[in-house]
């Protein structure tokens, strides 16, 4: 099934069922054509994949480990819970897989500059890292709301040498950052590659990003067989744009008995209107924006609706066309987890297992921990921990109302301001 997904009939290149395609201003047509050719060429070259895997093992701790959550499995009394540790990647999330792969492609194409959108900032940090390592000029577009809630990532991007552009259009989040990056690309494509961070956007991005992220699923399938002697009953992954889900699902698509569960951002609840669920309960409807056709959160006239999630990385109106198709044909099940459930599960997982999943990844934990007790202890389930949670310290501490943390921030700010005032005094 995995291979067939990407064998397009003539005239339907880049389509997965009714979703996908390339809806772009004509000025980008030749660039997309060039990228598709370069990607197809690289994919047909076995040395390319080998070089990619070698790079990831020397630069980003691959293969990432598989961890058995022994305490939680015992507590819940159901399925054995395993976690694929994408949080242990360099830069702290699965994003770096796709980025380093595209970096190798940029080298093949001979371009000198990379641009990218970022939501939570993980993809931006990964892209800035790749650009520093490979010697590319780098510009990152980020919604101004996200710049505010993910300042630590902005700090790192800038330290890594990237220019971060704060985008004030629209809802000032990921979708607006994508639009801004597309606009830059329409101007700069002769020297510049757009490192799309997720399995969205015009063809070939959904295919290409899935290809690089499939490394997660390939490793995880082997590790499950090695460590448990069989395949997991279910695989859970959070779904924003859908790149970590596409990556881990890719390893199990051909195993019909493995149920694949995507978990979207339920925000304040699907009935509140304040969420970012598109596939769960079929909330989204078919539309075209940002270069592709998928299920979007939009109103009846096709204007995108504001989204809400405690996690910036899932706060997005669209979803990868491959996932929308797999959901349509019933190959994946999609649930939603609320902000409140996410915070509760995060605390639970930290306390019992000593691991700190990112808020995004914790969505997958919510569904898995809820369902595990209903499965046999002979069964195992697999969660993709797409990223680590330390980056979320400001958001999490605020959500948990942690008083000592607040006092610490106040004290730090006080010290800074006192130091600055003293300096001013000296220079005056």
């Amino acid at each position, binding site marked *: 099934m995995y291979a067939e997904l990407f064998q397009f009939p003539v005239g339907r290149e880049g389509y997965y069922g009714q979703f996908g395609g390339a*809806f772009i*201003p004509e*000025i980008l047509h030749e660039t997309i054509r060039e990228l598709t050719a370069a990607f197809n060429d690289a994919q047909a070259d076995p040395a390319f994949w080998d070089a990619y895997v070698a790079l990831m093992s020397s630069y980003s701790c691959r293969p990432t480990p598989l961890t058995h959550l022994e305490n939680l499995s015992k507590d819940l009394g159901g399925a054995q819970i395993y976690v694929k540790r994408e949080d242990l990647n360099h830069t702290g999330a699965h994003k770096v897989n796709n980025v380093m792969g595209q970096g190798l492609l940029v080298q093949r194409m001979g371009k000198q500059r990379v641009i990218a959108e970022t939501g939570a900032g993980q993809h931006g940090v990964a892209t800035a890292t790749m650009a520093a390592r490979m010697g590319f000029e780098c510009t990152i577009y980020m919604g101004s709301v996200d710049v505010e809630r993910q300042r630590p990532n902005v700090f790192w991007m800038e330290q890594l040498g990237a220019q971060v552009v704060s985008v004030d259009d*629209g809802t000032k989040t990921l979708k607006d950052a994508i639009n801004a990056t597309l606009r830059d690309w329409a101007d700069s494509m002769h020297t510049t590659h757009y490192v799309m961070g997720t399995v969205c956007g015009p063809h070939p991005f959904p295919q290409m990003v899935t290809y690089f992220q499939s490394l997660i699923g390939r490793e995880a399938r082997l590790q499950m067989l090695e460590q448990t002697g069989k395949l997991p009953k279910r695989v859970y992954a959070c779904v924003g744009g859908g790149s970590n889900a596409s990556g881990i699902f890719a390893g199990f698509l051909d195993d019909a008995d493995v149920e694949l569960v995507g978990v979207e951002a339920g925000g304040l609840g699907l009935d509140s209107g304040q969420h970012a669920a598109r596939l769960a309960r079929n909330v989204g409807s078919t539309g075209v924006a940002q270069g592709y056709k998928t299920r979007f959160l*939009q109103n009846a006239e096709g204007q995108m609706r504001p989204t809400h999630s405690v996690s910036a990385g899932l706060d997005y109106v669209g979803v990868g066309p491959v996932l929308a198709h797999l959901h349509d044909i019933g190959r994946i099940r999609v649930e939603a987890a609320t902000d409140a459930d996410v915070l509760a599960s995060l605390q639970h997982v930290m306390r019992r297992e000593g691991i700190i999943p990112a808020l995004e990844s914790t969505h997958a934990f919510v569904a898995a921990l809820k369902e595990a007790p209903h499965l046999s202890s002979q069964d195992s389930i697999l969660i993709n921990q797409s990223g680590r949670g330390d980056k979320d310290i400001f958001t999490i501490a605020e959500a948990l109302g942690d008083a000592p943390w607040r006092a610490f921030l106040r004290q730090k700010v006080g010290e800074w301001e006192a130091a600055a005032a003293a300096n001013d005094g000296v220079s005056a």
Partner: protein
Amino acid sequence: MGSSGRRERRGVGMTPVENYIRRRLQRKRLLLMTHAIVGYPSFEANMAMLEAMQKADVDLVELQLPFSEPIADGPVFVHANQCALEAGVAWKNYFAFMQRVTVAFDFKVLMMGYYNSILQMGHERFCACLAEHGGDGFIAADLPPEEADDLHQYAAAYQQAPIVMMTPVNSEPRLQQIAAKASGFVYCVARRGVTGRQTQVDENLEAFIERCRSATSLPLALGFGLRTHQDLQRVKGLVDIGIIGTALLTAWEQGGVERYSTLLQDLTSAAM
């Protein structure tokens, strides 16, 4: 292949907008197409802009239907799209406004926007709606020719010209492919990038227009980055229609109806 495509197109018949353009070209060397984002800064302001256009003898007007994800637009239009949406502009008041405009003025009116609006409305309903409210065609900035067949069939049935775009980076085969889907006129994009930034009128531009001419016999319009009287002077004789968008809205934002009208008069005097 190109010439047989052209014969075929003539067999289908000229759209009203092409007829209109050819008639106007008998007495003017360069036609002018201008642009307004419906509902920005307000419907009243739009009316004042359009009155100024009528006075300046503008030939064609794009009425942009606001969209939340305008990827082909530059900062000035992105902001305008957003404000119009925040003010509540929806299909109903967009088309009511189009009707008002097509009744009141002589220029031809085209819808400009993004494909999602058309998709949500439905291809047939959209074309019927345009026809019913006096429109003569549409420009969908993110609809590639390979996705256009179904929509273009309805466009033909309702005598609407679906305007396609040619760009300097297109290969010859691609220009042929675009030409095969064209009617009314062809929108030539003067340079890379989005709307709203200066374009150099130079020999590269001339070579590009030459390539468009050999791909299609339709009238050619040139847009993206034309801002001044001098720009239009330079493209006169090269193309049939000059398109001015951002420069006008910027004039409005800087100096209201007065500055807007002055720029328009200045632009049309170049087109004479």
